[in-house]
């Protein structure tokens, strides 16, 4: 790989990142506090590998010890599937930490940005923010 090819690859990568922000494909993101990262721990109840969005349904133990169910919309298989994710990436029973942009209306949900597995691996689930 020569310098010119490297430059071109870097440019394409940059353009891709810019073009992809903010990310969500077919709807406004105004119902989320877009860019405000929150973290929550829980156990996967269901992972939906579906268009137009994937969903992580998470069982969480609330502050008072009460069981809560949270819903996290994510990027589509069309985006995630070309960046290392597939329908088997998460499954029922998986314990994980989820980083998300919360819903503005206070309901238990948001848009997932990345998932952190018990061994510390981070699975990025969105275009990296350029600003």
């Amino acid at each position, binding site marked *: 790989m020569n310098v010119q090819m490297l430059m071109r690859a870097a440019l394409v990568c940059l353009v891709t990142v*810019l073009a992809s922000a903010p990310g969500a494909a*077919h*709807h406004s993101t105004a*119902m989320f506090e877009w860019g405000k990262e929150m973290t929550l721990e829980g156990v996967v109840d269901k992972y939906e590998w579906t*268009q137009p*969005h994937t969903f992580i349904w998470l069982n969480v133990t609330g502050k008072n010890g009460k069981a809560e169910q949270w819903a996290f919309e994510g990027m*589509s298989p*069309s985006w995630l599937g070309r960046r290392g994710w597939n329908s088997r990436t998460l499954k029922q029973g998986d314990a994980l930490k989820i980083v998300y942009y919360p*819903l503005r209306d206070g309901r238990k949900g948001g848009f997932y940005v990345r998932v952190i597995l018990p061994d510390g691996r981070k699975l990025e689930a969105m275009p990296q923010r350029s600003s």
Partner: protein
Amino acid sequence: MERLRIRVALTAAAVALGALAGCTGSNADSSAAGQAAAGSGPGAQNGYAEIAKLPDWSGVWEPVARPGRGGPPPEPPKVTPAYAAQYAAYQEKNRTTPGINFISNVANCVPPGLPGSMLQPYPIEFLFSPGRVTILIETYSLVRRIYTDGSPLPENPDPTYQGTSVGHWEGDTLVVETIGILPETSPLSGINGHSDKLRITERIRLVEPDVLEIVTTREDPEVFVEPYTTTARYQRHRDWKMMEYICAQNNRDSVDEHGNPGINIERKPGE
């Protein structure tokens, strides 16, 4: 005996020719009735040999620079008074939260019309066959059929999301003309609806070995004071495969008539 055989053969040939003529005639009739010709024009006869002369557009094309995303924003369009208010309101929203203020119905899984369909976030793919270029659009699983066999655009096609298209090659550039686009679709982000006069012209060519450029011009005297042109670029991925995209599979998003977005996170028992 030999003479009889020849006579039978000649008769058969005459019948076949007659049938062919009748067939061609009926094609001409349906064409006159406003049907788009289906790859039966003069270009189709050259068949697959002609396709070998076309540029190589194989592979999967990822949009990397769309108007307003991935590059400097294009010059704003000159919009007629009838559409100025909604476009200004969109611009104002976009100033605070750029790129996310969709007002069209796509959040409800109603697919975008042309040209929005070509500016979706997921890839497109081209298929060449005699007299025809087919564009497959991953987002919403859309198909565009572009007749390149020399047939003219019909005068009054019934409106559809992707309209009725014909194309021709100018060197290595495919020039596509489209009319008959459903008037409730969005000709540009921030403008909902247009007249039945909307005409889209696309010039599609390779600008680098793996970069495809599409220059899109929108003409509709009821929306745009003058033709409005934007440019998009697509990066080739030879190792990608197109994916299925069925919007109704699990759409929990919505948008109301004012553009207010919603999301349903209720789960029915057993879901």
